[in-house]
């Protein structure tokens, strides 16, 4: 059990991330709200509790790393980084704007972004490299890689999964955002992916499954896997578009900005939730 104040604080952070996802994607006029909203709770737990990092020293060598392999969820990452203090929150208004550093997909020009991503399937390999570097340098940082469930259709993911297990990289933690939707439809329909956990286990990974929106469960899982001797995959069952009623579980908000009306509705829903939380 985690203390109620912490859970409440993280809930607040997750809500703020969600609000900024809507705000920044709306202002940008394009972007990917669905898959950003589905990882908001995970990012809140990572950046505001679990990860060892220092926004004042983004290149700190002992920091835990995060690779957002599903790079299209950049708006959520940017919100988390801004709220953590890597750069002024007002920069979030400049998402996808020319001459500003918040690119449509994560780029290392942004303070706090540990790896440029955007072309799916590459982040886990990068995580393997970072985890190997930790071992070479005798450092105890961990490497978190956030994967999409559509993304694991890429063959390179499995090359990396194999390498991580071969080198027994227990400092590598992949979190699979299991929202079951990809651009063209439900993941299972587009390209069957079950038994997902079994596949990863067969590659030599420890696999745990959680509700990716239950903060208590998210915090607990990090605690549980601390002494794993192999790389760990956390399958986080999530809802695409989580937190905005008309975006939840819908395909159409994978890569589309809300209209003005939708933006107003989404923000008022999130603000209502915030009021209830602050009760």
């Amino acid at each position, binding site marked *: 059990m985690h203390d109620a104040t912490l859970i409440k604080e993280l809930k607040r952070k997750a809500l703020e991330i969600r609000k900024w996802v809507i705000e920044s994607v709306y202002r940008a006029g394009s972007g990917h709200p669905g898959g950003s909203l589905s990882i908001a709770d995970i990012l809140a737990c990572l950046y505001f509790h679990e990860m060892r990092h220092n926004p004042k020293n983004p290149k700190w060598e002992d920091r835990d790393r995060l690779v957002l392999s599903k790079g299209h969820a950049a708006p959520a990452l940017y919100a988390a980084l801004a709220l953590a203090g890597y750069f002024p929150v007002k920069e979030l208004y400049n998402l996808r704007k020319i001459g500003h550093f918040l690119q449509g997909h994560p780029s*290392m020009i942004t303070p706090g972004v540990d790896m440029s991503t955007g072309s799916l399937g590459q982040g886990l*390999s990068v995580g393997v490299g*970072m985890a*190997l570097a930790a071992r070479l340098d005798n450092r105890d940082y961990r490497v978190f890689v956030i994967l999409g469930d559509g993304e694991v259709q890429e063959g390179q993911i499995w090359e990396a999964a194999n*390498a991580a297990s071969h080198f027994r990289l227990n400092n590598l933690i992949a979190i699979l955002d299991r929202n079951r939707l990809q651009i063209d439809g439900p993941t299972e329909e587009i390209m069957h992916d079950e038994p997902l956990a079994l596949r990863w286990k067969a590659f030599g990974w420890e696999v745990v499954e959680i509700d990716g929106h239950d903060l208590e469960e998210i915090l607990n899982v990090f605690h549980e896997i601390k002494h794993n001797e192999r790389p760990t995959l956390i399958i986080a069952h999530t809802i695409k578009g989580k937190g905005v009623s008309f975006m939840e579980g819908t395909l159409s908000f994978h890569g589309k900005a809300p209209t003005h009306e939708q933006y107003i509705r989404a923000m008022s829903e999130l603000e209502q939730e915030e009021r209830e939380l602050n009760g």
Partner: protein
Amino acid sequence: MVSAYVTNKMRNLRDAYSSALIELGYKNENIVVLDADLALSTKTKRFGTVFPDRFFDMGISEANMMGVAAGLATCNKIVFASTFAVFATGRCYDQIRQSIAYPCLNVKIVATHAGISVGGDGASHQMLEDIALMRVLPNMRVLAPADATEMEDVIPVIASMQGPFYVRIGRADAPIIFERHRKFRIGKAYVLRKGSDVTIIATGTMTAEALKAYDLLKKNGIEARIIHMPTIKPIDKNAVRKAAKETGAIITAEEHTIIGGLGDAVSMAMDEPVPMIRIGVSDVFGESGGARELMEKYGLTAENIAKQAKKLVKARK
């Protein structure tokens, strides 16, 4: 002018690569070497024997290797990633683009078995498009050393410079051209012969052929300027412009397709165009055969360079 002669001494550039790597490994503990199940062929295995902790054989997964290289590089490692040129560039173009060139990471891709002189393995393994593929990437610098001495000069220099490099070498032993080591400079053309009738700009394996072509042309009363262009990107624009201006005609020679490689880089570098002939493989795939036989069949010889140079000189008169 750099002293350069095609000697009878042969040495493999891959051997030079592994020697240079090992020397670097002793000097700098941040050097990490990756290979994809070709460590015996690329010779990186020798590094792995001396420094087993800093060598990782990633198995037959080149795309993953490039990503791992990128990850290591974000953690202050200077990473050398090696495999055959055909896999290093063709198979991994997107990984190199997204995960190495775009974030400008410290990954040195050293590819062996480039070009048609791979020989018997045939077209599937004869990489003739790698210079083109790597040249178009922002942040990427592209090199094709001419002999083992130069290879040993190049490796520590690229290790000391931040950001990505692509170095291509062939499979076959190559004649020693440079007997002495130099302080190698990236982006510098090396004038090997000072003639003014025509300029021959060559890179990689073709520099030895260009030097031989010089002798053939001299017998015909033609004094060619021979420029060795080990750095194809960034290209030495001044040397190209000066040669164009002073000799009025240029021949480029590369063991690569004539599209997108040295020839294109040279033509882009000229401010005023002069007559030019590109020697390379003319937009076809190779085939199995002996290395020398293939070089001859596809016109990658001193004789063909001399022939084309004569044609160019004659046309101008």
